[in-house]
């Protein structure tokens, strides 16, 4: 404790827990010094009157915050959740949720569909999505762990049509979505098929 330190009871005064009258006489002077400090606090309002115009000028030049990978308020048309066991030590369940975005007046993209991919993989340390929509790049589309139960999700907006994909668990294990039809990729692996 240095010579500059306020007495603990004076700190209570500064916190508003005591009044000057609550302090013993020997602490009154220190208490008055503390109150002078608080009296110098500048509480005057600060206003930036042109702030709104400046912010709106900036945001009007930017892409929509509900852009291609953002979640709109979707209309859910299908939900499938099926438990699936990959190995005794690694319980996985997968689900694919598809939303079709409602009418969009701002973005003229009527052929785009917002899709949410969900994989329940409690043991996984990382999950990503590889498919025809990202050139099968297993690092391009990571899923985010969104809950304590090991639920991993990613939301994409994809063009209408057919897409093939698989989940990639921990960077090495390619897992088809059991909630979707699958096709052989010609190399001994099964790809899930999503038709939008």
């Amino acid at each position: 404790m240095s010579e500059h330190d306020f007495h603990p009871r004076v700190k209570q005064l500064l916190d508003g827990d005591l009044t000057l009258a609550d302090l013993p006489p020997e602490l009154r002077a220190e208490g008055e010094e503390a109150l002078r400090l608080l009296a110098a606090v500048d509480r005057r309002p600060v206003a930036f009157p042109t702030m709104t115009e400046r912010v709106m000028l900036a945001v009007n030049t930017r892409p929509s915050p509900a852009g291609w990978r953002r979640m709109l308020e979707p209309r859910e048309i299908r939900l499938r959740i099926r438990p699936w066991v990959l190995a005794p030590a690694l319980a996985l369940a997968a689900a694919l949720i598809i939303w079709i975005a409602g009418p969009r007046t701002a973005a003229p993209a009527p052929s785009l569909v917002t899709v949410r991919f969900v994989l329940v993989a409690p043991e996984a340390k990382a999950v990503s999505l590889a498919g025809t929509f990202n050139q099968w790049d297993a690092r391009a589309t990571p899923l985010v762990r969104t809950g304590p139960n090991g639920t991993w999700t990613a939301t994409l907006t994809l063009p209408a049509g057919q897409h093939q994909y698989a989940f990639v668990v921990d960077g090495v294990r390619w897992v088809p979505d059991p909630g979707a039809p699958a096709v052989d990729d010609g190399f001994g692996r099964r790809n899930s098929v999503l038709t939008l």
Partner: protein
Amino acid sequence: MRPETQQTDADIVRAVLAGDHERYAVLVERYRDRYARYAARMLGSLDAAEDAVQDAFVRAFDQLAQCKEPDKFVGWFFLILRNRCYAERRRSKAQAPLEAADSLPAVDRTDGGAETAERRRALQHALLELTPDQREVFVLKHVEGLSYGQIAERLNTSVPSLKMRMHRAYDRLREQLREHK
């Protein structure tokens, strides 16, 4: 549709995400002044504060889809502004270590005159010598008037740790003010 003044933050966030970008102006109007003072006291410069608040609103717009609880927009926005203020303070400290409270209005003739202004200026200088964590808890409690409980909720921390931070801030401010007398 409800008048703008009755629209909740969540109403506006949803409208903006649905494409009505102009509605974002209502949120900016609603909160710009409340957080202008916080930024000004944290940064010790009106210009830096104005830039920080503007940048935080633009960032919040860009990231609006990530605001998971639209009815808590303001708490979410505050954390964006807070990060921006911390980053700006680190940057300005590296570039101009003596940048301080001089750009805040020093004299307000309607409010106590030169002596009050000098005390305020000295305290603002001393505030800038605190760690950002100490300065923040002081500003939120003694400038913004929040209770320890409210600050703890906003910063997702505990009241005892805030009090410890604040009590160190009191000692440091006292030391600074005595040195500059």
